[in-house]
């Protein structure tokens, strides 16, 4: 019987594929994230009583708050499921670099978050009559912001999953650390909606890219130590 040690990339893909297959069947995570995201948008609508002028200035903030809260639900569940069923040990026993677990989980978390965004965005546009959220630049910022948020979220959820208070602990750890990515995302996407020239959104955009690179690199380096007993 022949085996050849899988590469980090193929192991990460196997984990992401497994998560997607399991979620496709149970639909536990996506449905919870979606319902939550829609409720948050509705609550903002009623709470702020948005008129046309106000809507333009708060759209980016409302959307990112919604995605951040919904994303936290997914992040919490994704690692907790592995821990509760003891499957984290199954992943740790595989003869691969353990950062493959981080990349696999981050890939599937990102897929879930992008799927929720893809459903919520048209709904937001319809409810608030705001079509500028479909601009290509806006979608690019959405992707960059989601990558940064998911990278740091996946790392911290691996940490919090090992504690009894993980449901409370993850948001407490995540939101302060994710402040730079959320601020940069709100600033960049708000600028695009307001029709500001590209030079004016360059600073938050650069900050987003740097944040993404730093957090993916840091997670790659320290994930092994976080999951080790």
């Amino acid at each position, binding site marked *: 019987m022949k085996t050849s040690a899988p590469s980090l990339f193929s192991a990460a893909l196997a984990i992401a594929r497994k998560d997607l297959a399991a979620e496709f069947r149970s639909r536990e995570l996506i449905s919870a994230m979606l319902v939550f995201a829609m409720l948050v948008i509705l609550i903002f609508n009623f709470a702020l009583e948005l008129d046309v002028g106000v809507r333009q200035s708060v759209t980016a903030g409302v959307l990112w708050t919604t995605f951040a809260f919904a994303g936290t639900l997914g992040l919490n569940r994704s690692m907790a499921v592995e821990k509760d069923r003891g499957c984290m040990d*199954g992943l740790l026993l595989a003869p691969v670099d353990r950062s493959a677990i981080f990349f696999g989980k981050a890939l599937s978390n990102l897929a879930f978050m992008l799927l929720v965004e893809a459903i919520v965005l048209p709904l937001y546009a319809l409810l608030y009559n705001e079509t500028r959220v479909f601009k290509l630049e806006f979608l690019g910022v959405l992707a960059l912001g989601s990558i940064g948020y998911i990278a740091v979220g996946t790392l911290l959820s691996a940490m919090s999953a090992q504690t009894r208070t993980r449901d409370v602990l993850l948001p407490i750890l995540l939101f302060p650390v994710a402040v730079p990515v959320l601020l940069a995302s709100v600033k960049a996407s708000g600028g695009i909606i307001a029709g500001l020239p590209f030079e004016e959104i360059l600073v938050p955009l650069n900050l987003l890219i740097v944040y993404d690179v730093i957090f993916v690199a840091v997670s790659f380096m320290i994930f092994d130590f976080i999951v080790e007993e």
Partner: protein
Amino acid sequence: MIEVKKLVKRFGLKTVLKGLDFSAQAGEFVALLGPNGAGKTTFLRILSSLSRPTLGSVRVAGYSLPDESAKVRARLGVVSHQPLLYPDLTAEENLQFYARMYGVVNRAARVAEILDMVGLEKRRRDLVGAFSRGMQQRLAIGRAVLHDPEAILFDEPYTGLDQDASEMLDGVLRSVAAQGRAVVMTSHDLVRAESLATRFDVLTRGAIVASALRDDFQNSNLMDFYKKALAA
């Protein structure tokens, strides 16, 4: 195959393993016996690279832990109380996933072979969440031998199984052990351990205090040996 010398494991101020020496050769089936809290599971977690030793030397299949842990993991199969399976995936999908993680070549054929070995080929498209505890444990053994490991660790594999499921598991364990691997099994079930193992080590208070071969029990039995070891 497995060589452990002067192994110490501390959790904070508590020392769980206190200079433990152990070895198991290819083809040997070692039953590791001992009361709750003796350190059996901690010892198996160190052997499987899930936990780092505090002091001492641990070598599996010629590779040292923790430095060469990926190489050790490629040569080791582990079955614990939990089956390490995903309930929302089918039996076949679970094995396919682990085959990818272990880099098994010719995956489909190997998965079919393993499902046949553990007697679950007819349930291969059923979700693992719908399996009984016994079926899950058989599939867990299939998962552990998927990459044809040189050594296998069983941590209380009979936990939660009824009589029929336990007997079925006996057969699977025997066939796994008969393939020349080194097998280490922790168990509280002395009757089962006596029928399966070729050597019996008693681990208590963080060290192995007694060891005997199956052939040593001509005029006594495992229960007497175990009681004496614990009383000493």
